[in-house]
Each structure stands twice: as C-alpha cells, then as structure tokens.
C-alpha cells in the first residue's frame, strides 16, 4: 500500500493570543508549535496499517514555510518513510487554496489512502481533506473514529449527534480523522535518529486563488471573573435562587 498523510503545524492553544500589527493575523511571537492533534492521529492510522504490512510506504506532506519541516520530521520519527514540504511563505486561511496545492502534489502519487486530520484548531474550518478528495475525484469519509480495511473496501465509524454512523467505501479513498480513532505513538529515540536520515523533499506549493479572506480579527471579551458563592451542600439554595432570579435558566 501507498499512503499519504497531510499534516499541519499549529500553535499550542493554551495561551492568550495577540493580534498582529496587520490586524488580520495572529501574532506568533512566543507561541509554541507542534503537529495538529488530529493530524498526529492521522499519522498513527497510517502507521498502524504499515505495522501490519511493512511493505506499505507512508509519506508525510505539509504545506508552509521551512518551519513545517519540524512536524514532517516528527511524522518521520514516528515511522513515516519520507516527507514532502510544499513550500509557501505562509499557510493560507482558505482551505480550498491549500487543497489545490495538495491535490496537485497527490494526483499522480498512486496513493491507496490519503489521510487528513478532520480539522485544525487554528483556522477551524475543517474542509481541506474533503476538497482535496473532490478535486481528485476520490471517495471521502470524514471524521472517522474507527477504521477497518479488507482488500479494496473499508468500513469506518463516524460520530454524529447522539449516535454513530457506519460507512462503507472503496479504496483508494481519502479519510479524515476524528478523536477516538487511536492514540498517537511517541517517537522513540531510535525513530528520532532514523528520521534524520529519511528523505524530505521540498518543492514550491501550487496554491489556488483564495475565495475567502480574513478582513479583521478581534479578541472576544473575556468572561467576567468567576465567583464562588459558597461551600458544600449549604450553598445549594443560594445557587438555585441565582439560577432562577439572576441567570433565569431555571
């Protein structure tokens, strides 16, 4: 099998973000970056297939400036075979512009499966994998939390509101990964050493023209500081009173 995994370098969200001087991007000074969680699970999904069939080739692809090589190396240290950087000055906000570049890279790659995370926490649109699939004419199953492959067909589970959906699909296919599919492995020391010698090719990204642009960013007002109304069960009557008279939710 030949598998591609498309991954994104994203900032750690456990910070107070600042808006950059241009007003339309987030100031990334001092932010810590790592592979998007959903993408790490996508890498893991590919590697689990490779664990069963060592002849499988796993290619990690990331679009962006040279800093994205960090997350490609991480995927290589987890066990991917080679990496591709689609070089661009910045990652566009428009998922269809990103998808265009990825589809161009993927279309003649002969991939049986192409994995994506279902979304990234920074731009939060969750559209890239699906648009790539449409551009390549491949079937796509989104937000999968379980996957089984049997020859040229697969079955996947999707979490839906209040339940689950079970989906069958033919291979080749595009799959986007949700929480619950697996737990991503940590790179071993041996894996980290081996990753340094694995091929990482860099080529210009053939980005599409964006149809959507950010015109302004703002920081939503912080919640008012929390209030402790009392201790133990004795505080319950006061809580109920506040829920009825102040919050008016009871």
């Amino acid at each position, binding site marked *: 099998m030949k598998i591609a995994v498309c991954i994104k370098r994203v900032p750690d969200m456990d910070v107070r973000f600042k808006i950059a001087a241009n007003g339309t991007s987030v100031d990334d000074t001092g932010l810590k970056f790592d592979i998007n969680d959903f993408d790490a699970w996508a890498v893991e999904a590919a590697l689990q297939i490779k664990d069963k069939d060592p002849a499988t080739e796993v290619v990690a692809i990331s679009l962006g400036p040279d800093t994205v090589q960090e997350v490609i190396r991480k995927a290589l240290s987890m066990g991917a075979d080679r990496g591709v950087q689609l070089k661009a000055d910045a990652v566009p906000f428009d998922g269809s512009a990103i998808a265009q570049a990825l589809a161009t890279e993927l279309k003649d790659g002969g991939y049986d499966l192409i994995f994506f995370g279902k979304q990234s926490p920074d731009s*939060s649109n969750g559209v890239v994998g699906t648009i790539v699939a*449409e551009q390549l004419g491949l079937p796509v199953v989104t937000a999968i939390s379980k996957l089984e492959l049997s020859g040229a067909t697969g079955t996947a589970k999707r979490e839906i509101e209040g339940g689950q959906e079970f989906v069958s699909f033919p291979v080749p296919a595009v799959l986007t990964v949700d929480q619950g599919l697996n737990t991503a492995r940590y790179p071993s020391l041996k894996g980290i050493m081996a990753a340094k010698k694995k091929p990482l090719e860099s080529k210009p990204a053939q980005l599409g023209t964006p149809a959507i642009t950010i015109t302004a960013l703002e920081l939503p007002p912080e919640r008012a500081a929390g209030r402790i109304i009392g201790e133990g069960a004795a505080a319950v009557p006061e809580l109920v009173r506040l829920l009825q008279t102040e919050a008016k*939710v009871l």
Partner: protein
Amino acid sequence: MANIFAFAEAREGELRKIAFEAVTAARALADQSGGAVHALLVGAPGIAAKASQLAAYGADSVIVVEHAAFDKYNPEATAATAAERIRSGGYDVAIFPTSALGSDLAPRVAAKLGVGLVTDVTAIAREGDAVVVKHPMNIGKVLATVRIASTPAIVAIRANSFTPAESPKAGTVEQTQPVGDPSASRVVVTEVKLGGGAKLDLGEAPVIVAGGRGLKGPEHFTLVEDLAAAFGNAAVGATRVVTDEGWRPHSDQIGQTGRLVSPQLYVAVGISGAIQHLAGMRTSKTIVAINKDKEAPIFKVADYGIVGDLFEVVPALTSAVKEAKARG
C-alpha cells in the same frame, strides 16, 4: 435581488433543529435584500410532508428530493443534488449546517462549485457584492471577520447561533429528482445507531451537565445523569480524561478535540477546567462549577461556583432543582 438557498437537515424523516436555524438565517438575509428563501429538503419518500414546517420559519419555496437511498445520509448524491441546484438556481448565498452531516456535506458542495466556504459561522452580513461572516478561530479565542468573494458564497452556520424565528411564508413545494443515481454512491452509510430515543444532543440541549475526573469512576455518572434528568432539558457531557478512560463514549467529550458547546446553562461537576475542556464550553451563557479544589481553573470561568464534595452537593442540587421545577 438574488435568492438565498438553505439546506434543511433531516434525520430519520424528521427535520433537525439546525434546519430551522438555517432557514431563519436565510430569511434574515432575504428580508434585508428582497430575495426569496429556497430550502432544499432531501430524504426518503414521505419527507415532503415536512415542507410546511420549513415554510413556518420563512421558506418561500421548498425543493423536495425524495429517493429510497436518501433514507440515511447519502454524502455523494446529496452533494451532487445540492451543488446542481445551487448552480442552476442563481443563488448568491447558500447556507448549510455545521453539524456532523453539514461538516461533511458543505465542503463537498463548495469543491464541486469551486466557490468559497466558511464553516462554523456565528453571524452573516452583506457588504456590497460580498458576504461577510464571523468565524471563531483558535478554539474560540480569536474571532475572525471573513469576506467571501465568490458567488455563491457558501456559509455553514454553527448550531445555536441563529435562534429559529417563525416567519410564515408560502413554502411552495417543488418536487424534483436527485442528480445522478443515489443508489450508486461509492460512500454508503450502512447503519446508524442512535443512543436512547429522546436523548438530547449536546449541540442542541439548553442545559448540559458534564462530569470530570472528580467523579472517580463510571458508576458515579448516575449523579450527573440524575441532575440532568431533574433539569429535564439537559444533555450529559464529559471531559477528555473521562472519555479516554472509557467511562463515557468519545461522542460525549466536550473540548478542543471534542464537541464545542454553547448552552444556556453548563454545570461542571468534578471538572478541574483544563484549557482543553474550557475551549469547548467557555461560550456557555451561564456556567456553574462544583469542585472540591477552590483553586481549580474552572472557578475562573464559573458564574456560580460551589467549593465542596460533589458527592454531597450534587444530590442536594438535584433535589433542589426537582423542587424548583415542581413549583414551576
């Protein structure tokens, strides 16, 4: 002015709440610009009977596409049908839900049409020929204003952001055929498993009672369930630790990698308030926290905090809520 398209999501023959939210959002835009609202309703034979409900919320016409292979979500045929209708109908805005179904469907349609799409939208306006929307980013810590330059603009709305408002219109039914053969889709939903009948979904429930590690084990989730039952209109959620431990299914997880919720009332039981969790619930209107550690970060966002042993406080609250409900 151009008309507005709204996708009306249905499941098992019933419209979902977000279908009315989509029609409401479309109606508001049409009322500004003078266009009409056309809702697309796709389902198994018989779904046409639901068209009048969409008319009540402002659909001037309801395009109904019935087919036996639309009994469950049929991603490829639904996308092909919606895309063709949007292409031929001359709409300038097409509204979809950001739901499990809509998050799958909207980018398929946008790609088929080669137009711009923004998901998880909380507000929509027009600015000249462009459509301008609000879109939370960075787990809700940054709010973006996004301009969609394409025609049509595809906008997938966040649940609970557009309150359904009745605005009765004719809702003229136009029955039409699917595009392509829905029985020949490559991607097929073979089975749908729904948890217990009337169970409220986290995205739609006005009240959420969520439990964390402080509950100490899955058997104590009855405390959370009992409190939810006392409210009557509540869904049960959980933290990532709880779902990773297998105490609750992953679908119950609220947080950065789980569900993003925004109910009227959020009751956090035995939840410390890790950033991962706060990301999923900080936009709730009113937050109540019950935790034994007064330094827990959850108290920084809680409108009403009670420091104490949840095993004493929660049963007391459950009885008090029952009494309050009984008094009306």
